[in-house]
């Protein structure tokens, strides 16, 4: 479903992402782990077509995001970091706008908005403006926006960041509920999240993939059998190597 091929991104002299390749198939939830500033968000922004890669590309359902951006974007649902939304719009108004942009008209458009509201449990706040909502509700509105067109690929950048445990639970339930019919890509720096929802994970540090495997395989890499020890071991050595190279 998603085939990432040698993605690279330079911002001036800084190389944020260096040669990242991986695939995600339908039914899989791939976690992208890494410390802050490792290049997770930049990678996701290139996959979703927001940033053009310096070299390399991503193929989504057979469409190249660089060459055929419109066709590729139709297959993607994207939840950007911090769930940006238009603050002055109401929840219903915003989802109606997204449905229109996604090409739905008339009864189908209303049906999509209603099912989004229902699926993300937004009935209580549907007529409120987005600026009056709590962080958890905003995250769910942005989530509703991302799955409104039932995308084949769902890309989420830190979907549970800044949420309380109950809200995290709700978001993870929503992710798991649609895992079977989609390919899902989640970035996070919260390790428990990988164990809670992901079928496979890659660890990125300093713009490179330094480890890949199922959560169980990754845990086996450290005698303690704990994911945070593995994470610290791998990302610390990558950081040290960078210092030595410079």
């Amino acid at each position, binding site marked *: 479903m998603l085939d990432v091929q040698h993605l690279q991104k330079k*911002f*001036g002299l800084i190389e944020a992402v260096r040669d990242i390749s991986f695939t995600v198939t339908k039914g899989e939830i791939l976690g992208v782990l890494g410390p802050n500033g490792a290049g997770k968000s930049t990678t996701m*922004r290139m996959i*979703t*077509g*927001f*940033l*053009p890669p310096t070299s390399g590309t991503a193929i989504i359902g057979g469409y190249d995001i660089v060459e055929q951006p*419109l*066709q590729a*974007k*139709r297959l*993607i649902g*994207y939840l*950007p*970091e*911090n769930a*940006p*939304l*238009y*603050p*002055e*719009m109401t929840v219903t*108004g915003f989802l109606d*706008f*997204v449905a*229109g*942009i*996604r*090409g739905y008209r008339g009864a189908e458009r209303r049906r999509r908005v209603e099912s989004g509201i229902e699926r993300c449990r937004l009935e209580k706040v549907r007529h409120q*403006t987005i600026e009056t909502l709590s962080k958890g509700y905003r995250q769910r509105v942005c989530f509703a*926006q991302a799955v409104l067109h039932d995308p084949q690929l769902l890309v989420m950048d830190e979907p549970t960041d800044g949420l309380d445990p109950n809200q995290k639970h709700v978001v993870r339930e929503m992710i798991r509920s649609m895992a079977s019919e989609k390919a899902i890509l989640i970035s996070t720096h919260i390790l428990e999240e990988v164990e809670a929802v992901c079928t496979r994970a890659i660890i990125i540090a300093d713009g490179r993939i330094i480890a890949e495997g199922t959560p169980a395989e990754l845990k086996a890499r450290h005698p303690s059998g704990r994911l945070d020890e593995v994470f610290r071991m791998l990302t610390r050595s990558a950081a040290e190597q960078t210092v030595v190279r410079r």
Partner: protein
Amino acid sequence: MKLCSANTWEIFKREFRAYFESPVAYVFLVFYLMLIGFLTFFVSRFYEANQADLKYFFFWFPWVNLLLVPAATMRLWSEERRTGTIELLLTFPVTLGEALLGKFWAAWAFMTLATVLTFPIVITTTWLGDPDLGAIAGGYLGAILLAGAYVAVGVWTSAMTRNQVISYVVALVVCLFLALAGWPPVMDIVNRWAPSWLVSAVASLSVMPHYESLQRGVVDFRDLLYYASVIVLALFGCYLVLENRRTA
């Protein structure tokens, strides 16, 4: 490129409604109309002139628009960049050109609404005397086209920054240049050092001759071409700014 695709229409509707979803539109429209009214009746002494002529009324549009059009456009891209919603907008299956045009049409439509709402002054004049309706129609067409040129400049400057104040000030300066380019005191300064071809080039950028000729009720193709060129150039500049920000 299509001037109004389905996507452009959706973005147009969202942007146009956004003005009315906050108090901005109402505050803006009230001040716009009060300012035009005040300048026409009290500064230009419309009643004392004792003529059923709207020349003094149309005289003020370039100056009122100069102050208020940048206020209506400063939010368009800068706010998207500040809040990060630009990341949503540009990952929807929409081209950059469609998004840009939707925003431009929405801001221009809003300014057209503000312009048209000055109609009570026209009714007053028609009731008091017998003004030249052709000249009034021409004057309004000129005012709307002028607003379009200013709006295009404002859309461009709003893409340059995530700060609305900077966006406002830069738009104001560029529009002020368009308004003053042919004015003798300004041309005297340019004359002192610039070669003559540059002087005439600067003078030809001025919006005023085109605005005034429409006020006389004459619709000249060259005036329309001038406004179209300013709009197309400013929007193209905006496109480049946004495209460049993505690849930087």
